[in-house]
């Protein structure tokens, strides 16, 4: 019962227009950044390697390689500072957490692409 009440309290913080992205997807995360007075949007592109938590506490981790150095950012999924999440491509994965990518370098980082049925019919 208390979980129901907790959900009520979280409701206003939860986004409903989120895209359905999965572990292994390559995404563009548009984050709002305040520079003095002005607000601008910065894009962080990378592979989603983990999702954790539930309700308004849910977070996801995006990993990318910058100048041959691995960079990971953890975002609160429902944060108002995230303007948009765009799914660029989907990878085939058999794990819920892709921490094994941290030990890989170069070409081994790439995931096999999963295509939707429509796309496959076209090719």
């Amino acid at each position, binding site marked *: 019962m*208390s*979980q129901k*009440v*907790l959900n*009520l*309290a*979280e409701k*206003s*913080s939860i986004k409903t227009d989120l895209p359905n992205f999965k572990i292994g997807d390559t995404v563009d995360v548009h984050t*709002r950044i305040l520079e003095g007075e002005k607000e601008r949007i910065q894009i962080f592109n990378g592979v989603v390697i983990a999702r954790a938590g539930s*309700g*308004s*506490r849910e977070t996801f981790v995006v990993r990318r390689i910058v100048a041959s150095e691995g960079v990971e950012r953890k975002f*609160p999924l*429902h*944060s*108002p*500072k995230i303007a948009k999440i765009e799914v660029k491509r989907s990878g085939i994965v058999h794990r819920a957490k892709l921490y094994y990518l941290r030990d890989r370098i170069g070409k081994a980082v790439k995931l096999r692409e999963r295509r939707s049925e429509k796309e496959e019919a076209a090719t």
Partner: protein
Amino acid sequence: MALGLLGRKVGMTQVFDESGNVRAVTVIEAGPCHVLQLRTIDRDGYDAVQLGFLDKPRRLASRGIRGQVARLDSKRSRTRTKAGVELLAKADCEPKRFVREFRGMVEGISVGQVLEVKQFENAKALDVTGTSKGRGTAGVMVRHNMAGQRATHGVKKVHRLPGSIGQSQFPGHVHKGRRMAGRHGNERRTQRNLKVVRIDADNNLLLVEGAVPGPNGGYVIIRETNKR
């Protein structure tokens, strides 16, 4: 100034504020509370308002408890009315699970009135009182935040003990009040100056920033803070 309210701790979660930052909040189901009784100096020797929270099934309530909230017919009440004695006002509601009194006189409150979480709308910060979680027998490091002793340098088997507890033949005994290991928790505790993050009047919910004493589902007393 708002009187106060009784409630139940639902649990902790996080919400986003206007600037998009995460705030760790405790959700409290606060009210609605019936005013069950008014204590007055003339009758009881002190002024107070008695509130009740959550209905209790009638089968669990004794006749005395039911008689407090509703007018029950009895031989005594019949003879009293016949004698022209004005009986005490009753709240006319279900028996309540959690009943507490708030000291002091409050204008414009009558028996049977229902108080809601709306009254805290202008409150900056609240004090929340509850019964802390029981920890059983706990050592001095847990119970009194003592530092314990070193891991090395000759310390043997006393790493988590308090060390010296006094002097020698003078005074020849341990002073009263020396903090030692023992029962910890399960005590009335007040967390003061908690900021109000949000009030959800429709669902009787109160979101305060930070932690509140007691387990989820534990009863709490909420008051506006007098701390500056």
